[in-house]
Each structure stands twice: as structure tokens, then as C-alpha cells.
């Protein structure tokens, strides 16, 4: 898209495509959403008489594996975008498929962690730490599920729409969202497990 020249441009725009600007605006609102949860976490933690250290109550190795899984999936979706912009359909499908598999792996590992907590009688209602832990990871997990839906949709659409001129842009948008989900986890993991 042509860029704005200062004085009297033909079509003044921000210089970013609609879709990309839209995604970034959406991410800005998501930043505020998770920011609120982090504020809640910090306020409640600093106000609490006692707060468990993450390694005492959570499974750090599982959290670390999940971090690796999510970072790897960030790289694969990036490669999927690279392949999509290179018009390499099978390459795109390979990497997008890998991304989705890794996202499922993340959820499965998370599910095992949740299952272990429930088995020990730890529920969101049992302590304020559990409330924070389950709500933050739960909302993050919800975002992972949304990402899986979007990415699967793109994988499905790539059968017919791969040649569409906007297709690579859509993959880029999905990628931006997925990297954001990754960033949220990058903060969540130390905040809950390691501090």
C-alpha cells in the first residue's frame, strides 16, 4: 500500500494494511486485558500475608517443557508464514500443521497439570494463589484454543485459498496473535512458577 507523503497525499493512510492494523489494535486491547490480570496478581500477592513460592506448589519441569513447546510453535508458525509468502503450499501446510500439533501438546501438558491439582483437591476456590493461578492460566489456555481454531481454519482454507493475494497476510495476522500468546506465557511462567 502506498505510503503517506506529508503534505497532500493522494490517499492518506497509516502505511499499514487494514488487516495488520486491526490485528495490532486487537493485540493492544489484549495487552490491557492480561495487564489487568497481572495487576490483580501483583496487588493480591503484595497484599497477602503469605504467598506460596511457585516451585512448592506447581510442577516447574512441566511448565518449562510447556515453555519450550510454545516457543517452538512460535517458530513454526513463523516458518509457515515464510512458506506462505514464498507461495510454497506444502511447506506452509507442514509448518502450520506442526504449530497446531504443538498447541495441542501445550494443552495436553497443561491438562495433566490441572488434573494433578484437582486430584490433590486444589481448586480455584481453595486459596487465593490457586484462584490467580487457575484464572490466569485458564484465560491463557482459552487464548491458545482460539489460536488453534484460527490456525486450523487457515490450514483448512489453504486447500483452496492458498493462491489468494491476501492469504499470506492472514497467516501473518494469525502469527502475530500466536506470538502474543507466546509472550503472555513468557511472563506467566516465571510469575507463577518461579517467583
Amino acid at each position, binding site marked *: 500500500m502506498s505510503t503517506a507523503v506529508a503534505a497532500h497525499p493522494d490517499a*492518506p493512510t497509516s502505511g499499514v494494511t*487494514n488487516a495488520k492494523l486491526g490485528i495490532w489494535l486487537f493485540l493492544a486491547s489484549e495487552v*490491557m486485558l492480561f495487564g489487568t490480570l497481572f495487576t490483580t496478581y501483583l496487588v*493480591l500477592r503484595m497484599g497477602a500475608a503469605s504467598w506460596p513460592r511457585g516451585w512448592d506448589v506447581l510442577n516447574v519441569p512441566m511448565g518449562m517443557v510447556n515453555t519450550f513447546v510454545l516457543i517452538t510453535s512460535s517458530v513454526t508458525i513463523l516458518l509457515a508464514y515464510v512458506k506462505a509468502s514464498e507461495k510454497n503450499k506444502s511447506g506452509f501446510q507442514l509448518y502450520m500443521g506442526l504449530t497446531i500439533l504443538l498447541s495441542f501438546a501445550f494443552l495436553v501438558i497443561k491438562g495433566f497439570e490441572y488434573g494433578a491439582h484437582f486430584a490433590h483437591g486444589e481448586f480455584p476456590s481453595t486459596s*487465593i494463589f490457586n*484462584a490467580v493461578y487457575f484464572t490466569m492460566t485458564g484465560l491463557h489456555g482459552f487464548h491458545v484454543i482460539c489460536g488453534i481454531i484460527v490456525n486450523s481454519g487457515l490450514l483448512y482454507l489453504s486447500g483452496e485459498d492458498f493462491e489468494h493475494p491476501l492469504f499470506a497476510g492472514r497467516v501473518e495476522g494469525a502469527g502475530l496473535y500466536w506470538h502474543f500468546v507466546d509472550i503472555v506465557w513468557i511472563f506467566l511462567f516465571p510469575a507463577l512458577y518461579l517467583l
Partner: protein
Amino acid sequence: MNTHDEHHGGHHELTFWEKYVFSVDHKVIGLQYLITSFIFLLIGFSLMMLMRWQLAFPGHPIPLIGGLLSSSLAPNGVMTGEFYNQLGAMHGTIMVFLGIVPLAVGAFGNYIMPLQIGAPDMAFPRLNMMSYWLYLPGGLMMLSSFIMPGGPAQSGWTSYAPLAIINPGQTVWLLSMVVIITSSLLGAINFLVTGLNMRAPGLSLDRLPIFVWAQLVTSVLLLLAFPPLEAAAVLQLADRVMGTSFYLPSGLIILGQPLKASGGGQPLLWQHLFWFLAHPEVYVLVLPPMGIVSEIIASGTRKPLHGYKTMVGSMISLGIMSFIVWAHHMFLSGMSPMLGNFFLVTTMIISVPSVAILTCMIFSLKGGSIRFTVPMMFALAFLPLFGIGGLTGLPLGLTTTDIYLHDTYYVIGHFHYVVVTGSIIALFAGTYYWFPKWYGRKMDETLGKIHFWGTVICMNGIFFPMFIQGMAGQNRRYFDPTAAHHNIPTQPLHIVSSVFAWLLFLFQLPFIYNFFKSMWHGEISEENPWQATTLEWACPSPPPHGNFAKTPRVYRGPYEYSLPGHKTDWFPQNEEAKA
């Protein structure tokens, strides 16, 4: 209910649904928003008319409909405290989240903004449709809580924890808020992308009409202030449904019974998160109406707005500042008094851009040739009445005087002057002003003038007595004001307010009649009935699908009126200058 066309439809083929119900055309969606939000305003107002009976005549059976209400709400027609609180909470919620915001942003923003920037539609038409189709179910869900077990929310529109967590009815409120907030977020993204990326050639930012600026700033506020409330609502929902304790401190004893909760939460946190949204929300309610008034004043005085740059700058600084003043709602909440001083200072600073905007509007009148059309009359009434709203904010924003006036009727008077005689008056002005754009017909002037005088007088009659009651120390949200001795001397003023409230309803009937009559039988309007310069008048009324036959090109700023040497006293933005 959702569109004016729906009642003669439903049995048509698919195209009808695509055209009028699940339309992706910003104009149809704008009108859907318009009608729906006006209906919600009427519903919210009806709740208030019921409450006004209880305030004026506490303990007396409600006439006419008292007998129809279920005995749990109003035994023998006399309202209960629960029912009063339900009405109060729903009145606030409906008016703010389902009435004024969708009207100012969803309806006017949706219809007018793309036209004013010369765009064929919004940037994401399908997302736009989704916004509406989240807003309507969210609103209906909110209303449906009246027939749910436990009834609607009854903890005020502010839903302060822990009351909101232990009171019945709050769950549906929270769920519908999450839906409505999502709708607003989608709308905000759409507006920003449209305003930044879809402008006509030549329409640089310094040539944008004030209304577009107002919509852009508003969208930023919605985008960044709503998510915290969404998250806070999810946490409150978790407190109610999952038994967490985000907002519940340890050791609560409710009516003699220890509350079963882990504790460890902080009720103040809810207030911080709520007001982090709800103060910017005030500017969401006020900025688009200011934009509407600016448009009308420019065309009604036949001269450029005074201080275009000052106004734009003030709007942007209002938007930014509105994020760091929220805790002036919480001076007495138990928050740190030191922080109170901080918010006192920011609150006083934010009054500066507001005064600048109002000053620019007044100075715009100077030297004009003022046409007293109905929209112009509403726009002019906005100035002094919004002024009262702004001025009475001063003693509330000062920590010391707020000690006495906080949570009294003074507060109610103040924010109703801002939102009702400010925003709603301006939205009426916008309705009269852009009606010819929507339907190609004009609204009736005589009925409009009856509506104007009735509305302005009644609104003042309702809200001015509240300042006196507030001075006398009357607390707000009292189901029976006479229960406290210090309220008894000002009790007659409640009767005054109530009578004016019911009269205000009567004076809306000419408007409703005028609206629907003019829609089909109004005087056919010319292309540019107000001889205005902005781009929305450069296309036919109502605009066809795609709006402009040929993308307009913009040559000048938005308010080139009475340019010496030009043949007419208006010089449209898209008219090429003859050399």
C-alpha cells in the same frame, strides 16, 4: 425490534435478511444501532419513572401498573427495597452501556464517520455486523435478567464487591457485560482502522471534521479501557461461580453466617479496575456528542469553528488524561489519602481541556449568522447545560469538599447534567441534523421545537433539585429517603423531580411520532439541507450501497464557511477551487 423494517418481514427470501437484518452495510448497521439504542434509552427511562414514584411517594402503591407487578417485587403494588435496587442498577447499566454509548458510537459513528471521510464502508464490514449482533443479544440478555430467578443485578451499575458477589442476580449482568464489551472492542478496532486507513484522497488528519476526531479518540478509549473491565468482570464472575476470592477479604460474616470463601482478596481492587474503565467511559459518553455539537455549530453559524487545532488537541489530551483520574471516584473508599492528592491534581488538570473545548464552541458563535433550526437549538442548549455539569464537577473533584458531597444527590445531579443535558441533548441534535441524510426527508420543525422546549425544561426540572438535596446531605441510592431525618426537609423536591420526569416522557412522544412520520411522510429534503461543507453531504441522501459514485477528493479543511469571494457561503471540502 432490531430494525425498523423487520416488522414487515421475516417471510421474505434470503436477500431481505442480508439487506436489512444481517447487513454488512455500515448505514444499515448504523440505523440498527440507532433504533435499538433509542429503544434501550426508553426502557432505561421507564425504569427510572418507576423509581421516581417510589422516591416521591415512598410506601405508596404504584398507580396503574403497581398491581401488575409480581408480589415479590411489589407486594400490594408497593415497591420493595430489592426491586428498587434492581431498577437502579439496571437503569444505570442500560443507559450507559446499552443506550448512550451504542447511540453515540454505534449509530452516529457508524453511519456518519465513513461518509465524512469519503469511505465506501467501514474497513471490516463483517466485523461491523458482528459488533451489532453481539450488542443486541448482550442487551437482550441484560433485559432477560428481569425474568430470571433471582432477578436482575441489584448492586448498582458500579457492582462494588463484596455486595455484588453476595447479592443475587449479578451473574447474568456480568455475562452480558462481557458480551457487550466484546462488541464495543470489535467496534473500536473497526473505527480506528477505518479512520486511519480509509480516508479520501486529500483528507489529511488536519482536515478531518471534529466529529471524526471525536470518534477516533473515543475508539482509543474503548479499545484500551474496556479490556480491564472485561478482565475484572471475569474475575467477579469467578468469585460468584467458581468460589474464588479475588474481591473477598478473609473473615466476612454475612447476616451472622461466616462466608465460605478462601478470602485473601481486596474489594478495593474491583473499584480500581472498574473506575479504570468507567472514567474513560465518561469521555466516551461525552466526546462524540461534543463532535456532533461542533459540526452543527459550524454549519448553523455559517463560519469556521473557532480554534480547530485547540479543539482537536483538547480532545486528544482529554482522552489521554482520562486514564489517570479515575480514583477521584474513590477518595473516600479507604484508598490511600496520599494517592487522593495525586488524583486531585490530575482531576483539576483534566478540567483545562474541557474548558478549552467549551470556550472554542462559544467563541465560534461570535460573528456568526446563527440559524435557529431545531438541531442548532439543541446544540446551543448543550453549551450552558453541559457547562453546569462541568462546573458542578469541581466540588466533587476536590478532595475536601467531596468528603461532604460524595455519594449524595449532588453527584447524581452532576453526572446527569453531563450525560443527559449534555450527551442526550447533543444526540437529539444529531438526530435532527442527520435525519435528512438517513431518510432523504426532513423532520418536522414545529414538533421539533415542542420537543426541544419540553425536553430542556423538564430535564432541568428533574436534575436541578438534586443539587439542593445533595447540599442538604441526601444520600443516593436510598429506596426510602424519608427513613433518614436529614432528608425530610427536601422531600418535596423529590415530587418536583418526579413530576418533571413523567412530563419529560410526555414530551418524548412528539419526537417518536415525528421520527416515524417523517421517515415515510416527511418533507423531501434537498441533497444538502443545511448547506454544510463536510463530505457526508457530497453523496445522495440516503446514500446508495458504496456511498459515493466516485471517490471524492478533498481540497480544504472541514469548515470553510463564508469564504470571501466565494459564490455561496459554504465551500464544500470536495469542491475544486476555480482558478
